[in-house]
């Protein structure tokens, strides 16, 4: 697996920090609520490793159900990435129902709630991607958001096992609610290289760091 220097990773974290910060501001404006995002922790890991982490230590008992909001992006220069936002289903429900002023005791997310969650994810992902595109000086065209909720073990089944996943873990605080989620970028190896080259360019990293 390709490795990255500390310098590169710091630069990545900074790029996400900038883009997610804007995402939070947009989101706050939409829901009329103060939203704080913690500084993202960024790393590259494989799909299976991510699945293991999502399952946590509860793999055998009561599986953690997660909701995933997924949009695919294609850059004008060939960069292809899937942007994913993952939240625990329970936390997602809380946020959506809170925004809708609803206290329905239904355990799983309904069709309309999934739609609302798609919109929320769409806003965050769009904002994030647009500031990345802005920073990179390029254009990223996105697909419509798709929402899926399932056990952590099967959440990434549709993704290729050998893809590298760029994971940015963010903490989201919304009024009294603490919600921890992940922003994920799934890319094939050429896309990763391209992505990192842009980051290096952005932060004017020495080209040696890319070797």
């Amino acid at each position: 697996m390709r490795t990255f220097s500390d310098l590169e990773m710091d630069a990545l974290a900074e790029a996400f920090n900038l883009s997610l910060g804007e995402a939070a501001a947009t989101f706050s404006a939409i829901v009329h609520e103060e939203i704080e995002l913690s500084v993202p922790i960024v790393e590259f890991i494989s799909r299976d490793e991510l699945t293991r982490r999502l399952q946590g230590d509860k793999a055998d008992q009561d599986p953690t159900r997660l909701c995933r909001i997924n949009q695919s992006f294609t850059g004008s220069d060939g960069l292809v990435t899937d942007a994913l936002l993952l939240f625990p289903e329970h936390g997602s429900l809380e946020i959506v129902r809170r925004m809708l002023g609803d206290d329905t005791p239904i355990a799983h997310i309904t069709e309309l709630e999934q739609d609302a969650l798609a919109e929320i994810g769409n806003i965050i992902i769009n904002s994030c991607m647009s500031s990345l595109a802005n920073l990179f000086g390029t254009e990223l065209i996105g697909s419509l958001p798709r929402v899926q909720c399932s056990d952590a073990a099967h959440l990434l089944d549709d993704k290729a096992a050998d893809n590298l996943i760029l994971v940015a873990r963010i903490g989201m605080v919304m009024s009294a609610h603490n919600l921890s989620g992940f922003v994920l970028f799934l890319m094939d190896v050429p896309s990763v290289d391209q992505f990192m080259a842009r980051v290096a360019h952005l932060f004017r990293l020495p080209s040696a760091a890319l070797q």
Partner: protein
Amino acid sequence: MNDDHLLADSVDIGLILLDHDGRIRLWNRWIAQRATRAAHEAEGMTLTEAFGNHIDPRLTLVVREAIDFGWTARLSHALHPMPLPLFPPGSDHSQRMMQAIDVTPTTDGTRRMCLLQVRDVTEAVHREALLKQQAHQLRNDLQRLSRAQEELQRSEMRFRELARQAPAGLFEADAEARCTFLNERGEQLLGRELAHVAGSPWPNLLPAAEQERIHDRWLLAVKSATRFSEEFRYIHPSGRPLWLRAEAGALRDQHGQIRGFIGTIVDITEFHERASRNEFRANHDSLTGQLNRDHFERHLRAAISGAREVTDRIALLFIDLDDFKVINDTHGHQAGDTVLKAVAYRVRRVVRAEDRVARYGGDEFAVLLYEAGDDRSLAAIVAKITHAVALPINLGHCHVRISCSIGLAVYPDDAQDPNGLLNQADLRMYDGKRGRPARAGLAPPTA
């Protein structure tokens, strides 16, 4: 473009295509049916021109973003219930249709355009509203149920604790009198555990003489739906005879049918014993244990009123001890008492069990003989009494002898009423004491 229009008009979703300048290029039939504008009117207009100023501002924003930056957006119904002024086909346009809109960038080959896909979510909203209503209902029902269960548990605990501490025996029994509950005190009273009495009707635990009466009373209480309240004898497994009182009220099921009884069992042995002691004291002479004068006369009156209907003879004997005062003066009052007790005992032994013996006054005794028989047998009884009294009486340090005088009167021969009979017997007793011949009927005994 015509083919595109044909296709766009045949889908069950709203499609609006905007060109790079935000002007309408496609307005499919689905939209035309729900907006107040036909396709040929709308084409070439901006969204604002086509719909007026009644568009959700966010929709305008995301349309711009799609055209300028190639972003996609979803406007969910939950956050944007009715972004466009669209109305259900055939409605009076008073209420906007519930919608969800997807905005995606597209291109005509050279310049970027924007496609709006509008979905009617009315069905989904109604479905979910119903689902939520049911979920709320279910939650409320569950809460009510769990509150009721808690209350039930509390009251059961309360009852159990009360039953445990109660000083009275508590029991519950079904309509067939089979015991279904018995508290600790109840088990103590009966000397039996619930498990041992549960199988058969509880009156079966009683002495044979009581069983039928109590069982009948129980069935009567069940049939007439009245309170069961009875006193009965009970032999404790330790052999101790008890008097118990059971009181019970009916328990009914939801149809008002009697399901059983719940009530108390109390030990009234002491009360019973005290009452019978008091009764004995009131009716008996405390020294000799024989009837007292009042009670004897009640028996006499009852015997005469009973005898009037049959032809029985009833005999009354008056017995007076001769020179009893001498024994008192010589040996003391205690010796006198011993003599009185001995005489009473002896007279009692001579007559039959159903006959009555009383201490009538200081040293006077009276005997009532039912079905007295003829004069000869009466004379034999008088002789037996005279003889029995005359036997030596042991005073501990010496023996004394005492004789008695007996007056006899017979109903109906000598008198028709109790007083007449008493007078006659009294007179004859005194005649005998003075050595005079008897005034009537029977000759004085010649023992």
